[in-house]
């Protein structure tokens, strides 16, 4: 009893300290990454050859007005002082106000990030659901027509400018065939009908059971998500193919086949199972890069997302907004990293220490 209890308690403590250690490690990683990001973005902000005061007061303000804003922005202070001031505010959850939207950066990110999240998630779903099977089939049918088709699909996805594909997509599917809706996230008739909860219009409208809005939001989402999904697919299918080819030559596959394991099981279970770790890394990275916002796609489709927000802020030297956006992206990268780490351990016994 005592022994048992003791052992159990010890195991429990070990587990707790393990979790605590992991959490600590995660927090430290997050803090370090974000600190580094703030520092580098800050430096970049200093070397951008754009006068940030111009974004606030424009080209013709009087010297008096100019001087006041310059002082308010704190640009006259030495950079290390500016850095500490900003850091102090961020720690308190104050990311400052964007000079170009007149809103707090937090408010802006809450508004623009969901649009990007919705687009990126839909695109990644398309890319993974179609790309992984395509890559696997291409690998098992290496050199046959289906492999070539996959390669061509990938090549087109890689080499066509997304801007151009977006325009052609709009012209054909929206303008000519009337299959999807045009630029924007909703038709104006549906604007403001659904109370934002998550900010993802498809999710919010489904939650409130407003299916007209849902259909409309979906009809706006299909084309840009399909387009970005296609690019993701091109990348993921190529990577899956090359990972699979690496596995299919391995001896354990030969053994499995020799043992008479059905081919389907050999491919989809043994081989695919073994490439899961690198594949998840690839998927996570492509998801993360979509979450940064796709500036060109957002421009063509008038999609008010993070990419446009950060780009426009940068061109106006609106550093609060740029820093806030960069931090958000940094945090996403760290979180996805940790998530992948956890998945590895789940999938790969060797990774469990």
């Amino acid at each position, binding site marked *: 009893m005592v022994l048992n209890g003791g052992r159990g308690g010890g195991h429990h403590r070990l587990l707790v300290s393990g979790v605590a250690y992991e959490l600590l490690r995660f927090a430290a990683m997050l803090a370090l990454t974000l600190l580094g990001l703030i520092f580098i973005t800050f430096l970049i902000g200093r070397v951008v050859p754009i006068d940030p005061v111009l974004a606030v*007061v424009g080209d013709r303000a009087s010297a008096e007005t100019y001087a006041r804003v310059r002082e308010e922005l704190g640009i006259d202070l030495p950079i290390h002082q500016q850095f500490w001031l900003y850091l102090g505010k961020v720690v308190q959850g104050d990311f400052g106000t964007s000079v170009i939207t007149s809103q707090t950066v937090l408010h802006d990110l809450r508004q623009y990030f969901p649009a990007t999240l919705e687009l990126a998630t839909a695109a990644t779903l398309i890319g993974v659901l179609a790309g992984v099977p395509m890559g696997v089939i291409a690998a098992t049918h290496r050199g046959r027509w289906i492999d070539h088709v996959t390669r061509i699909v990938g090549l087109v996805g890689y080499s066509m400018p997304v801007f151009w594909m977006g325009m052609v997509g709009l012209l054909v599917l929206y*303008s000519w065939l009337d299959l*999807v*809706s045009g630029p924007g996230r909703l038709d104006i008739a549906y604007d403001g009908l659904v109370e934002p909860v998550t900010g993802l219009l498809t999710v919010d409208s489904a939650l409130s059971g407003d299916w007209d809005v849902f259909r409309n939001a*979906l009809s706006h989402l299909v084309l840009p998500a399909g387009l970005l999904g296609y690019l993701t697919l091109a990348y993921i299918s190529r990577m899956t193919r090359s990972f699979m080819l690496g596995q299919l030559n391995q001896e354990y596959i030969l053994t499995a086949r020799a043992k008479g394991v059905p081919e389907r099981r050999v491919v989809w279970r043994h081989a695919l199972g073994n490439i899961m770790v690198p594949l998840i890394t690839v998927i996570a990275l492509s998801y993360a890069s979509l979450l940064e916002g796709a500036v060109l796609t957002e421009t063509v489709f*008038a999609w008010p997302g993070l990419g446009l927000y950060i780009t426009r802020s940068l061109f106006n030297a609106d550093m609060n907004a740029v820093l806030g956006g960069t931090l958000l992206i940094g945090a996403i990268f760290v979180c996805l990293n940790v998530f992948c780490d956890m998945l590895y351990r789940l999938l790969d016994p060797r990774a469990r220490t």
Partner: protein
Amino acid sequence: MRRLLLGLLLSATMLSSPVLAETPANTLVVAKNIDDIVTMDPAEIYELSNSEVAVNVYDRLMGLEIGDMANVAPKVAESYSVSEDGKVFTFRLKPDIKFHSGNPLTAEDVEFSLERVILLNLTPAYLFQALGWNQENVKDMVKVIDPLTLEFTVSEKYAPTYVLNLMSTVTSSIVDKKEALAHEKDGDMGHDWLKTNSAGSGAYSMRSWKANESVIMEANPDFRLGSPKIERVIIRHIPEGSAQRLLIEKGDVDIARNLTPDQIAGIAGNSDVVVETYPKATVYYLGLSQKVEVLRNPKVQEALRWLIDYQGMVDTFLKGQMKVHQAFWPSGFFASLEDTPYRLDVAKAKALLAEAGYPDGFKIQFDIANTQPYTAIAQSIQSTFGEAGIEVTINSAEVKQALTKYRARQQEMIYMYWGPDYLDPNANADSFASNPDNSDNSPSKPLAWRNSWDIPDITAETRAALQESDTEKRRQMYLDLQAKLQKSGPFINMFQESEQTVMRKNVKGFFSGPNADLVFYREVSK
């Protein structure tokens, strides 16, 4: 697998079959690039797209109305008078004007609105600072006489039209004092709240502005000139002209504002839409920094005037968007100089360069914004200058970046635009033909300063024209100034802008005046 993909695609498109594309009958939907909007407070508004909203949302003492773009007339004012010495202006207000909140519009609101421009000291404050108003004296300079009478004093005698023109700018928009103060924070006179809300008495009230998304305006049935014809105006942010083209052709928007000349040409055959051209007051010029020795040479300056293919550009990639205009004050207004003496003449330019001592040309750095049509203009200039042996290096950059360089006087040659803040010639003369202090620390940075053009005599002439109260004499003074700058000096004025707007055939009554703050929606019907 393929069947699965096909199935997915089909179900996605079927699920999402959109409603028939047509905008609601009571709503006007406008596609426009509105990423320049940074605020909606009239004391801060300075960009184009928000000026356009403000003129529909706020009223002013004076202003231009549809039908007469030449003469400033009373709007909220019923009448006005100017004292003998030209320094005291008295305005009698129209009775019974109400703000959107229902509060009556009185002289107190006007006083509050004018004063807060100076007290807040935001971008456009310089317009009123020019009247001698500052944070210390403005409360004495602007006074309420009775609920419907306002009086203000200016520090010097100016041409009355200049002062009245200032009272017709966006900056002079009349804000609902009670409403603004109800939302005051830390003595900001409602500034923070007014950045994203409105408190006006104009034809429309602003329901919302979402940066990079939309502006929504609702009709004000009690508007001074009667209820607007259309109930709601939605300006959607569509950054790309090509996307705007698809939307307007499809009927998903009623008006598209940012199509390029080739996109306009592309819809010429579509009978569902019409294209309207509205002349604008923005002028485009080449600035030659006088810090650069060769550009100080008058013969070189003249040679360069003969080395630009003005008409060639206007006939091709600028078609419908620009017209040749070679004076600093735009054509079509009081005191406009309409002469366009220069055209591309390489032989003449070469002869002038030889006379100047540069028979083989010279090298020059050229700054320009990195968007169209600027890049095409830069290439045209590079090639025609090249014909005379002048080697042009183009530095294209983000417009704010080019502007930063320009304001630090680090450029050699630059192509830029200038839009007047108000439609009195002083708005341009004060920048092109005035440079009170050419030192690096000059408090003001007019265009003449940015090009290091030290001109005490011309600055004095500009000042004299500003103070001349005889209209005919004043007109002649501005004509002389323009003629002088057309022949010599660092400015080669090249073009004046036109806006091409595409509308669905059923849209009537849209009006876009020469400035951004003269775009009216209240007469629109469909």
